[in-house]
Structures are given as structure tokens and as C-alpha cells.
């Protein structure tokens, strides 16, 4: 079964890059543009991994992470923070909330895939054979 990855970022550019990074793998990449949408998609789709931005309108990533960890049905989903903010307070607060990993923007797609591979199984997408 394909691995479900939820990308939560207000930047369409980042969501496209995340989608592109996992294209070679047997993954379904779901998208949300803020924390509120992210919680709805997470509850509905139960992704295997969430890639989460910090600064977003409507609901930021820290609030979404807090709510995820309070929800018994969602708290076990591993979360990788993908953010340009690497300040001490931010990193400590997020680590204490129980994030699995942290990737600072700018980033290479390979770095994201490597970190994701430590959280979930990433199988290469089967090559389609001509009929």
C-alpha cells in the first residue's frame, strides 16, 4: 500500500517541491495550506507522515502540532518540521512537543527524502510496463 505523506505549507512552491521529492516513491502526497486544513486532512486520511511548516496564516504549525499530539487518534503520526525558522526557542518548543525531525529551509529534496525514510518506508514506485 502506498505511503501517505501530508505536506502542510502555505507556500504552493514548497508543496510542489515536496510532491516532486516523493514522486519516485510509492507515495500519495496530500496537501494542506494551513494548520486548520492540515488537521482536517490528517483526521480524514490518517497519513503515515506529516511535513509541517511553522509560519502559516489561519493556524500555524506549532498550534497544529500541539493539537495533533493531544489527539489520541493522530498523536503517533511522525512529524517533520520544514521551516526557515531555526531560532533556539522555536526549536526547543517544537522538540518538546514531540517532533520526529527538523529540516531548515532552504533544503535539498534528497535531505527531505532521507529524513522521511527514517520515519516511514519509502518503496520505489513500480515501473509501469507497457501492455
Amino acid at each position, binding site marked *: 500500500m502506498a505511503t501517505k505523506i501530508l505536506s502542510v505549507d502555505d*507556500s*504552493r*512552491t*514548497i508543496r*510542489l*517541491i515536496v510532491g*516532486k521529492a516523493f514522486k519516485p516513491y510509492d507515495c500519495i502526497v496530500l496537501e494542506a495550506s494551513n494548520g486548520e486544513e492540515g488537521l482536517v486532512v490528517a483526521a480524514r486520511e490518517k497519513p503515515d507522515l506529516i511535513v509541517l511548516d511553522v*509560519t502559516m*496564516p489561519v493556524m500555524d504549525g506549532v498550534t497544529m502540532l500541539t493539537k495533533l499530539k493531544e489527539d489520541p487518534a493522530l498523536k503517533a503520526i511522525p512529524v517533520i518540521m520544514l*521551516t*526557515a*525558522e*531555526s*531560532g*533556539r*526557542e*522555536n*526549536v*526547543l518548543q517544537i*522538540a518538546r512537543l514531540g517532533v520526529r*525531525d*527538523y*529540516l*531548515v*529551509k*532552504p*533544503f*535539498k529534496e534528497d*535531505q527531505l527524502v532521507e529524513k522521511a525514510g527514517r520515519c516511514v518506508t519509502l518503496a520505489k514506485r513500480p515501473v509501469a510496463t507497457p501492455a
Partner: protein
Amino acid sequence: MSAQPDINQYKELARRYGIAATPESVSRLTQIVARQDCCVDEIVRVIEKDPGLSSRLLRVANPHAADESEYTVGTVDEAIMRNGIGSALLLAMGTPLSLALIKTFQTMLSLKLESVDLHQLDSLSGQHMLGSIGFAGKVTGHVYLRMSSASAKAIAAGILGLEPGELGPDEIRDAAGELLNIMTGNFKSNLCDAGLDCKLQPPKVGLTDDYFTPIEPGSGLERLAFRADQIQIFVEVTANPWAE
């Protein structure tokens, strides 16, 4: 919990997550400027030890000079005395911003972006892409990112791995906004770590033919310029270090 265990814990997390540290001279300079009782000598000593910071400060202090031979302000001490302590903060803010921009080009576009003197670039004319983001708290100000439409398109294509012809205006605008977010997120982290807590406001990105950069009372301005192949980028930072 006291600050020291927090700092040690952060260092351990930064190592585990692979978070790169801000250059020591920049962190030190930001911490000194964050103290309202800092003295000029202390600032000068930190800047003089870093050739990059010294060179940028002197460039800012000699805005009309085409090169070093035309400098009328020749020392770090003179530059700080003339431009004020606020110029040291702009210097400390500009470094993480420049590093983030250069690293973005290197990692996401595989292009070597160079920091250059303003006069080495062609001036923008007519309509261009402008992104701006405000920050407010113990330090307040704005970061402005300007580039031609062609440069904005080339950057979006590079980041997304698409051909320029495949891009619509929304993709180009969004990529410029993300570039701005990455730059400002990195410098905000340095400010907050030095005790200058501030929050970023939502970015605004769009086409404009307005070249006016508003400077709030008590604020300083630093202009930075960058070049990679045909891409030219202009960055302006305004900041008031003691807004509160």
C-alpha cells in the same frame, strides 16, 4: 529552567537535526547591539575581527564610492561613529539574510549567487517584482526584495524544476514569496536568539513600478545586491533596533 541547559539542549538538537549555526561574529554582534548600553569599542572590536563584516560596513559608509580607492571613511571605528550603532545591527541582520539567499540558490537552484556592489548591477526600470515582509517586536522594520520579472521567472523555474514557459503568474509570485520567507526566517532566528524577539508579518508580493522604500523614523537602511547568471536581486532592509 535556566538558560544554560536550554543552550546545551539546543546545541544537541541543532547537531541532531543538522541545523547550521549563525557565524559566531554575527551572533556576538547581534547580542552586543541588543543591549541598549553597548559601547562602540566593543562593536568595533567584533566587526574588525571579521573581514566580511568590515568590508560591508565600509561599503555602506561610502555609498557614493565606486571602489575602495574612493572611500572617504576608511576605518570601522569611523564608519560606526558616522552611521551610528543602528548600522551595526543592520550589518548583523544582513549577514544571515545574505547567507540564506546564497544558500537557497546553491541548494534549490544549483546556481552560485554572488553578493556584489549595487553599482555593478543594471538598475531596474519599469514594472518589477516586489516582495516585502515586516517584522515587529523588540526590533521593527521591513525586508524588501526586488527583481525584474525575467529574474523572478527564472528563479521560480529553477526552484520548481520547470521550464519558464510552464509557469503562470501565481507560481512566479509564490516562489518569490517563498524566497522572501526563507531569507527573513533565517535572520529572524538570529535576532530572537540574541534577545531581540520579533514576529514576522505576512509577506506581500506583486508587480509594481514604485521604487520608493519607506524608512520609519529611527530606522536605518541597508541595500544589498546579488547576481547569478542573468538573475539580479536587490534586497533592502530597514530596521529600528530599539523600537520598544
